[in-house]
């Protein structure tokens, strides 16, 4: 009886999209970085190295978006001189990198995560607070 009960639970679980939230890492200040700590729920689902590689690449891309370099200064000064009307014609550096990030996430999902039944959402859709991994695969039933 206990077995049928757990099987029913598992069938319920099968339909659920469980989510794993990867939180922000604030140890470097307010720049956008995500924790590379491997969540235990994904232990059986994906290789730790691959996960850390994905998060590290994302962190590097976000660091590039917020980098204070000559390009961002030139853009800032130009924008100030044109009273910020220049942004009606062109995208900010940050927006360009966000597009790069969206493409990268799409590519990672297609290549690595979707085949394992996972989906990584773009953090911008959650206010750059969390990166969410949807876990949708049917849990393995032990007969």
């Amino acid at each position: 009886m206990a077995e049928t009960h757990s099987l029913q639970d598992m069938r319920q679980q099968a339909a659920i999209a469980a989510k794993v939230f990867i939180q922000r890492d604030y140890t470097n200040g307010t720049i956008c970085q995500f924790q590379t700590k491997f969540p235990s729920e994904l232990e059986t689902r994906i290789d730790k190295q691959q996960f850390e590689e994905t998060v590290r690449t994302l962190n590097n891309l976000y660091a590039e978006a917020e980098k204070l370099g000559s390009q961002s200064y030139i853009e800032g000064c130009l924008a100030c001189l044109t009273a910020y009307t220049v942004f009606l014609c062109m995208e900010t550096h940050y927006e360009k990198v966000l597009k790069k990030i969206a493409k990268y996430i799409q590519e990672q999902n297609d290549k690595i995560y979707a085949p394992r039944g996972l989906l990584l959402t773009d953090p911008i859709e959650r206010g750059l607070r969390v990166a969410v991994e949807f876990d949708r695969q049917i849990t393995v039933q032990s007969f």
Partner: protein
Amino acid sequence: MHLGVSESMRECEYSQISTRSSTPMETPYKKRTPKKRKWESFPGRNKFYCDGRIMMAKQTGVFYLTLVLILVTCGLFFTFDCPFLAQTLTPVIPVIGGVLFMFVLGTLLRTSFSDPGVLPRATPDEAADLERQIDVANGSTGYRPPPRTKEVVINGQTVKLKYCFTCKIFRPPRASHCSLCDNCVERFDHHCPWVGNCVGRRNYRFFYMFILSLSFLTIFIFAFVITHIILRSHQTGFLNALKDSPASVLEVVVCFFSVWSIVGLSGFHTYLISSNQTTNEDIKGSWSSKRGKDNYNPYSYGNIFTNCCAALCGPLPPSLIDRRGFIQSDTPQLAPPTNGITMYGATQSQQSHMVSESETESVTKTSAFRAPNSFYRPPPLLSSSSKAPSPSS
């Protein structure tokens, strides 16, 4: 067989759950219901105009006063003083005045109408996940709400991240909840009634440009109106000069009273920018050396030049609240209890994971929070500075 079923289900579900708005599965759904934009159901106390393009605070009366003062004073200056000055001195004066005026107006509107850096509130799943993590980490004794702070070490300084009961998130460092707008704002500086909006990460540079250019404009108008009256009184005598251009008197009065506060404010914000602090932090004395010998600002870049460049010419982050996006029926969000069952095992293992690893983040106990449930709104900004630091456990 098992693999085959799950694979076909995976493919099916991948396109269903995709969060991009252009999925074929979702558009037929949307065509039936009227499209609503996200700003229409925004949880904060903001006002939106132009179909979500413009975002302001709820109370905008003082902003209109600011606008009227600037427009009237400049209007009077260009109408009554400039013709005389252009003839007597040089036509460059109205040109410079015009440029300054346009710059002031542009930066004012940009400050008032843009998103200051509002953090979107947590989705129900995120909030539930956070609550579970906090409960598990604290043993969930149940009677009092679990203490809601996290400690992070940033550049050698320990910073406390507070949990926002309204937005249901742990506020990032330097973020604060504005009680007037009812939003958490990134790098919150202050809520300015004169611009009718919060001043935060995304519009601080416009605010600074506004007060700086307004200082120049005020001093410019003040100086040239005085010059105008002096030149006229050489010709016709002082009292006649005042009679000939009565508007000048009004302008002098307005400029005289504004110049002290605006120039003072510009100076204050110049100091804040050069030390990379927010008004909030300065008022609370978060990084002042009076708090302790080792207390320093972990966000400062070390030199004034870099701090200024970072604040004024750094990259402008995009708005995190998608005001003009369309509301979609979200992915199959199932009832929390069922989700709780699936996650429970996970959080238990997470607890052992958290306990075994000595991370720099730990949830500490504070005695400050009173409400029995999470609908308590945090107190307004200033009074929170009077809360005693928590007794560390």
